[in-house]
């Protein structure tokens, strides 16, 4: 045997700021703050995870015990609160921080994991797991994996394989489950193994009106539109009204509203063919485009009521 000198010289003092910059944590967190509106609990948790990484690195160099953290997460929240968006971004963040090796996201639902006949499920689930190794496996609407009404459902088999890999290969992949709050709660209640193997249960809160308005403006800006002052007021009223109406799904409803506003703006412009348009006309949203929405006349429910004889 060769006499190899001990390569792991232990350090005793660390410059925290320098460490954070070297790990790219400051830029990652800044980016997160800028690109995601609201979502305080999510940002807090990401910050904690990033801090853990930093401390863990320093502990390793100081010769203290270091164990890879469990990073499996569950995202619960109402429709349109940004669960999928954050999950896709999470892979990038974790990769940037060095928690996952490759940083790809494999986004699946029940159909991709559960087979159609006996012996079909295990290979299918394993295939997906192998693809997700080194990255993030995102299971949307995870509660569909478990069908309480059918005890011979193949979903249970997929769950068992998932649990096994989540436990044994924690450093190889991160599993993120997502779904609506109540249904996830009952899913975890019937699969206690899942609950205990997930370290981070993150609740996505509903957006406030101010945040929704900000999101709407951001969406319009991305699509190259500008709101006139009157339109902005109208949109504020629109959001306040829409929130109280049924089937409101946060940012998703706002996205749909933005798309319909664009339709109405285009329609308004085209309705008068005998005039010259300039760029300002093309990019400005008027109050009329917003106010024409049926939300102001009582919403979809009112429409349905008046349509009945």
């Amino acid at each position, binding site marked *: 045997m060769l006499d190899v000198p001990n390569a792991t010289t232990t350090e005793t003092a660390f410059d925290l700021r320098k460490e954070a910059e070297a790990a790219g944590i400051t830029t990652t967190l800044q980016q997160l703050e800028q690109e995601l509106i609201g979502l305080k609990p999510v940002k807090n948790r990401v910050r904690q995870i990033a801090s853990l990484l930093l401390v863990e690195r320093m502990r390793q160099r100081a010769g203290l015990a270091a164990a890879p953290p469990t990073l499996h997460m569950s995202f619960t929240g109402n429709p349109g609160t940004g669960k999928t968006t954050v999950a896709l971004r999470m892979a990038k963040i974790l990769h940037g921080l060095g928690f996952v090796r*490759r940083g790809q996201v494999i986004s699946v639902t029940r159909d991709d994991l559960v087979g159609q006949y006996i012996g079909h499920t295990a290979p299918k689930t394993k295939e997906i797991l192998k693809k997700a*190794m080194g990255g993030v496996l995102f299971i949307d609407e995870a509660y569909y994996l478990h069908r309480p009404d059918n005890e011979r459902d193949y979903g249970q088999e997929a769950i068992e394989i998932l649990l096994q890999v989540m436990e044994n*290969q924690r450093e190889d992949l991160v599993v993120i489950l997502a779904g609506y709050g109540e249904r996830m709660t009952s899913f975890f209640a019937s699969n206690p193994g899942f609950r205990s193997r997930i370290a981070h249960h993150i609740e996505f809160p509903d957006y406030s009106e101010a945040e929704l308005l900000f999101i709407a403006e951001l969406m319009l800006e991305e699509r190259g539109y500008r709101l006139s002052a009157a339109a902005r007021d109208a949109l504020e009223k629109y959001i306040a009204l829409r929130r109280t109406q049924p089937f409101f799904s946060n940012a998703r409803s706002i996205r749909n509203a933005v798309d319909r506003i664009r339709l109405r703006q285009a329609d308004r412009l085209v309705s008068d063919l005998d005039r010259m348009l300039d760029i300002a006309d093309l990019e400005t949203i008027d109050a009329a485009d917003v106010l024409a929405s049926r939300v102001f006349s009582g919403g979809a429910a009112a429409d349905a009521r008046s349509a009945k004889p």
Partner: protein
Amino acid sequence: MKLTQGCFSFLPDLTDDQIYSQVQYCLANGWAVNIEFTDDPHPRNTYWEMWGLPMFDLQDAAGVMMELAECRRVYGDRYIRISGFDSSHGWESVRISFLVNRPPQEAEFELVRQEAAGRSIRYTTVRKATQHAVP
């Protein structure tokens, strides 16, 4: 007798970390990684049985290592090799192949000479019958 077939076979057996690195190299090159096993490691036996399907769409070698662990659990008493197939135009062949598992008691081969017409001699590699031969 230590069987020497494929890459790295004159080196000490690869550790799992080394296998991981080799597989990652294959995946990074876009090769399809296969796990094959056999109880008949004769040099002329090219038809080893496949463990599962070729793995060509993985990002990380951890998936292959998971399958390898499973294959070792079931066929730990046989030879297992990993090969990387390059499907790109002009290659279309196996680019790397190395043993990753040996049975506790390795196969023994001997050289058999056969006198043929006109004092010529034919050589054949024949597997010796040992206790742990083909089950």
